[in-house]
Every structure is written in structure tokens, then in C-alpha cells.
């Protein structure tokens, strides 16, 4: 009874760091997994939900704090909903299961995530992570937010996708939707805010942001660094 339309976008980095997740999603759960350069997030399971896969050790070490908070803040810029899957670190063969020492710092990180409204799931291995991703995709599908557009534009459409992707705070999914819903960039630029929201499947405030960006009056004086003189 699996619908073929159930689709998950995976970031290219995940081929290295989570190969089992991707192959489980494909082989066991029969999901369409499209690997693309998402950049900001590890997985996109619907038009609005980004899933970040984090290892438990990453949450344990205070050294990661800045990187993690920057990453999650950037996600909040482009996604309505964020979920974090905390995966237990892999136990290497021969190594007896490492004793997980829970620290005050770790509890603090969890509390901060809860307060920020970020959903947290716990997984003990990559297979479980894949199962959780499938559940999330199913749930989002039920709520009518599933990714239902072709995920592999070609030729000219590829150029247009790259153009949309360069817009700040626009997720890969929203860019795909724009590609699919509008015939041309000019059609997007001339759309009203509600039409943009419907076509990109973004919320109204985010569509407004996009609208403002497209009509932003460029002022050369406001470019941060002076351009290098020509002919050097």
C-alpha cells in the first residue's frame, strides 16, 4: 500500500556519513530517495520539515556548540519545522558497548532544543533512523505536505532551479515547487504573495519574504566590500 509518491530528499554528505540510512530507506521502506545538494539540512521529508541527523557524541561535546547552533539557526531560516534525530554512536567491532556518560551539558542542549520547539527523536542505529525518517515522511504525507513534484529538473529547468536556490532562506523543496508551479522566472516575479505561497507551498510570511526579495531595489552603495578595480 506504499504510495510511490513518498519521496525524501537527502543531502549529498549523507552518502558518506549515513549510507545505511539511505539504502534502508530505498530497499526496506521503498521510498524514493533523491540525493541532492541540500546544503542546509541532512534530509527533507516534506515541503516544510527538515530532519537533521546528529550523533549523540556531537550533542555531548561543548566544542560543537557554536557549529550546532549556527546550523540549527540557519535551518530555522528556511524551514517551518525542524526535527533532530539523535543517533547513538556506532560501536566499533571489538569494542564493548561504550558507557554513555550523561553530562549536564547534554541535558542543557536537550532542554534548549525543546524550548526552541525543535522536535527530537532518538535512534540507536542507522536502520532505526531510516525507519524514523519513513514514519515522518508518512506523517507529513497524511498532513498533505509531502513532496510531490519531480525532483530532477533537467536542462533549462536546472538553470532556473539554481537561480531559485540562490535566493536566501529558500529551501530546496520550495525552489523545486517554484520550478514546477510557475512557467518562468518572470511569472514568479510578477506573482502576488498568496500566489507565491500557493505555488511554492511556503507559509504566507515566508512568501512575503520572497516577494520582497524579488522586488528589492538594488543599491550599489550598500554592497559590503568595494569592488576590486578593473584591469588589475
Amino acid at each position, binding site marked *: 500500500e506504499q504510495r510511490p509518491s513518498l519521496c525524501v530528499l537527502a543531502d549529498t554528505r549523507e552518502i558518506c556519513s549515513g549510507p545505511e540510512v539511505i539504502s534502508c530507506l530505498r530497499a526496506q521502506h521503498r521510498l524514493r530517495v533523491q540525493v541532492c545538494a541540500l546544503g542546509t539540512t541532512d534530509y527533507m521529508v516534506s515541503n516544510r520539515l527538515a530532519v537533521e541527523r546528529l550523533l549523540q557524541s556531537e550533542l555531548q561535546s561543548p566544542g560543537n*556548540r557554536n557549529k*550546532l*547552533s549556527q546550523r*540549527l*539557526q540557519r535551518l*530555522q*531560516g528556511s524551514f517551518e519545522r525542524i526535527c533532530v534525530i539523535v543517533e547513538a554512536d556506532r560501536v566499533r567491532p571489538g569494542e564493548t558497548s561504550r558507557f*554513555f556518560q*550523561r553530562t*549536564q551539558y547534554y*541535558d*542543557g542542549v*536537550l*532542554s*534548549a*532544543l*525543546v*524550548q*526552541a520547539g*525543535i*522536535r*527530537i*527523536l*532518538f535512534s540507536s542505529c542507522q536502520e*532505526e533512523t531510516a*525507519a524514523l525518517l519513513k*514514519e*515522518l515522511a508518512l*506523517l507529513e504525507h497524511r498532513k498533505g505536505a509531502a513532496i510531490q513534484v519531480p525532483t530532477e529538473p533537467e536542462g533549462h529547468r536546472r*538553470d*532556473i532551479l*539554481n*537561480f531559485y*536556490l*540562490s*535566493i*536566501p532562506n529558500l529551501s530546496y523543496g520550495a525552489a523545486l515547487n517554484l520550478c514546477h508551479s510557475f512557467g*518562468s*522566472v*518572470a511569472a514568479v*516575479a*510578477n506573482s502576488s504573495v498568496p500566489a507565491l505561497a500557493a505555488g511554492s507551498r511556503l507559509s504566507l510570511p515566508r512568501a512575503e519574504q520572497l516577494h520582497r*526579495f*524579488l*522586488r*528589492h*531595489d*538594488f*543599491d*550599489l552603495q*550598500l*554592497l*559590503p566590500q568595494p*569592488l576590486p578595480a578593473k584591469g588589475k
Partner: protein
Amino acid sequence: PVTAGSIVVPYGHVIVNEKWRGSEVAQRLQGKVRLIFEDGLGLVDFHLSNRTCILLISEADLVAGDEFKRRLVRFRNASSLRGIVIVEKTQISEQYYLGVQKLVVLELGMVLLPVANQGEASQLIIQLVSFCVREQSKDRGSNPFLRKQRPQLAEPAVLQSVQQIPGVGKTKALLLLQQFGSIHRLCNASISELEEVVGQTVAQQIYTF
């Protein structure tokens, strides 16, 4: 049945269900946070603030069967409070964890946090309380995962985007933007208008894009 009326939690305090008096969690919390024991909290174990509360599921609850699930569902249906479920995930109760997670997080949309024992639960509660206190004092800047809204100049991004048009590099992008001002106007420019700024070929390319 969830609570007798709305609960008002004094600033920096935790209201604890009477049934936890003398338990390991309560003992470990004592001295770290100010506890108020109260009867008649119903389904809730700890109130951290006026809108956040904790339901604690012990190892025994998990093993005993589905009673705790009914409790969670009843809580979810009856209360608009933000419910955080803390569950004791031990070697014995581990096997139930995935099922509980699916119910609590995916179906009920609540927060679920595993701990290994009551000692860990108390440490976690202390951290949660400290974040609740910060939230109440509107000190939201202290949360590293909350996005800070700072206005950003759109100029560099607009320039970047225009460079994505085939045939347009930095120099032409600047010329185009100086002439047309915004992406919106650039999209609506005619070929002849474009030709005034860039060559015929590129004008054609931009126009068809």
C-alpha cells in the same frame, strides 16, 4: 481530570505531585530547585511553569502494559499545556522505547526524553527548569538554538541571484541591477531595453530565461 483548575507556578519553583514525595527524584531535586508538593495534580507529575509540565514514565510503567499510554492520551486530549514526557529507558524497558516514541512524538506531538534512571531524570529536570525560568524572564537570547532576527542587507544576495542567469557574470549583473533596480523589473524588461545594457546575445539569453 488532568488538574484541578489551572496551576500557577511561582517563579523559579516546581510543583510536584504528592505521590513523588520521598522518591529519589524528589530528593535529588531538593536543594537544587524549590519544590512545592501538591495533591490533586491528576495526570501530571511536575509543573515547571504555567505552560510546561512533565509526565514521568518509569521502567515499571513501561513493563506493566498500556496503562501509561491511556494516561498520555488523556493528558493530550484534556490539556493545552506543553507536555514533556520523560521515560526511563533501561536495559529492560529499551525494547518498548521505539513504540513509545512513535506514540508520544509522532502521534501525540509531545516531547519525549529518555533517561537511564531517576537520578538522570532529576538532572534533566533541573536543566529544563532553568530554561523555563529563562523563558519566563524573556531572556530568549540565551537559547543558542533560537533564531535571532537580525536584518540583513539583500544586496549581496540579489547580486548572487542575478549571476545565476546564464551568460551573466558579476560585471553584467551589476550593470543590469544598476539599470533595472530589482529582479522583478529585470524580468519584465523588453529585449531592446536589455540590449542597451548588454550585448544582443546575452540580452536574448536573459529574455528567454
